[in-house]
């Protein structure tokens, strides 16, 4: 009996099938990773505790009302000015002796903060405040901290704080990561992010 070759399978439609799959994955793909403002919540404390005594000059109060308006240190303010105001508060450096700030460039106003370690930004919002406004305020306050950290990192290590953090998180960075981490810690110790959030008023 004559052996017959198996007939060749027609592969012409393979491209069509592959295209179909391709289009499916194209549609379902989301390449971008999520990003956002990271915060750490304070631990839950069931019983009321005595609040620590903080001098009024070291607190920078930001109030947001239900109409999304800002009241900063008892004065009405537009959100565009908030970053600069917070930056000036942090950079004031009005302390003397133990509390003196050796790197601040502010005017040393006696009614503003003594140094960035002591300075606290307090954010109070209303239950009716819109989330978008709240994020905008958070963003401006974090930006004020970053602005000051950038300046100090530039002065001490010759590159900005955001650049240092970016390099630290970059897996392809070739420099000395341990040294970079120490430098980041130094800056974070110098200018800690002290952002306190009170429970919203109703």
């Amino acid at each position, binding site marked *: 009996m004559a052996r017959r070759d198996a007939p060749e399978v027609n*592969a012409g439609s*393979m*491209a069509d099938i*592959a*295209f179909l*799959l*391709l289009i499916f*994955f*194209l549609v*379902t*793909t*989301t*390449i971008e*990773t*999520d*990003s*956002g*403002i*990271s*915060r*750490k*919540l*304070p*631990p*839950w404390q069931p019983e009321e505790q005595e609040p620590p005594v903080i001098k009024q000059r070291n607190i920078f109060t930001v109030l947001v009302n239900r109409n*999304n308006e800002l009241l900063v240190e008892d004065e009405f303010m537009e*959100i*565009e000015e908030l970053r600069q105001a917070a930056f000036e508060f942090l950079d004031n450096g009005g302390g003397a002796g133990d509390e003196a700030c050796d790197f601040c460039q502010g005017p040393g106003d006696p009614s503003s903060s003594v140094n960035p370690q002591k300075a606290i930004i307090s954010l109070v*919002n*209303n*239950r*009716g*405040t*819109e*989330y*978008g*406004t*709240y*994020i*905008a305020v*958070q*963003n*401006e306050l*974090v*930006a004020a901290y*970053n602005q000051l950290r950038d300046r100090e990192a530039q002065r001490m290590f010759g590159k900005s704080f955001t650049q240092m953090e970016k390099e630290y*998180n970059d897996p392809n960075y070739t420099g000395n990561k341990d040294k970079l981490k120490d430098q980041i810690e130094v800056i974070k110790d110098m200018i800690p992010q002290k952002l306190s959030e009170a*429970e*919203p008023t*109703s």
Partner: protein
Amino acid sequence: MSKFKKKTNEGQPAISTASLPDIVFMLLFFFMVVTVMRQNTLMVKNKLPYANQVEKLDKKDLVMYIYAGKPSPRYQQRFGTEARIQLNDKFASVSEVQQFIYSERETKREELIPYLTTALKVDEETNMGLVSDIKQELRKAEALKINYTTLQGDALRNME
């Protein structure tokens, strides 16, 4: 009659498409590898606010998502237009947040639990009252690392 006869016009030779499947497969594999399927179907309006002082949130397996916002139009009949919380694939009340965090923790390896982050995907029109309630519940559940997920952009656009 010349020896080198001009070729008669027989049309352009057909381009071989034999390598087309290979190219398409290459693309296909690329997209298969980078695809991340959406874990939850959104049942709430979710227009995130803008911010530019952001940190990236990688390691997707260490993130728990909490959505909040007004129910989408097709659920408004049943659930109204008041902003709600969505956990996994259903609407939830504030008191269910703690339970959700505990059950999410169960599914993760023990040594990874301290690194878990809660991503809050909240619609920009939501009132802060709801967000604060969620935050209080997270504090009770000791899920202290949170991330307000935002879009990249100028934060002042939120005010418009």
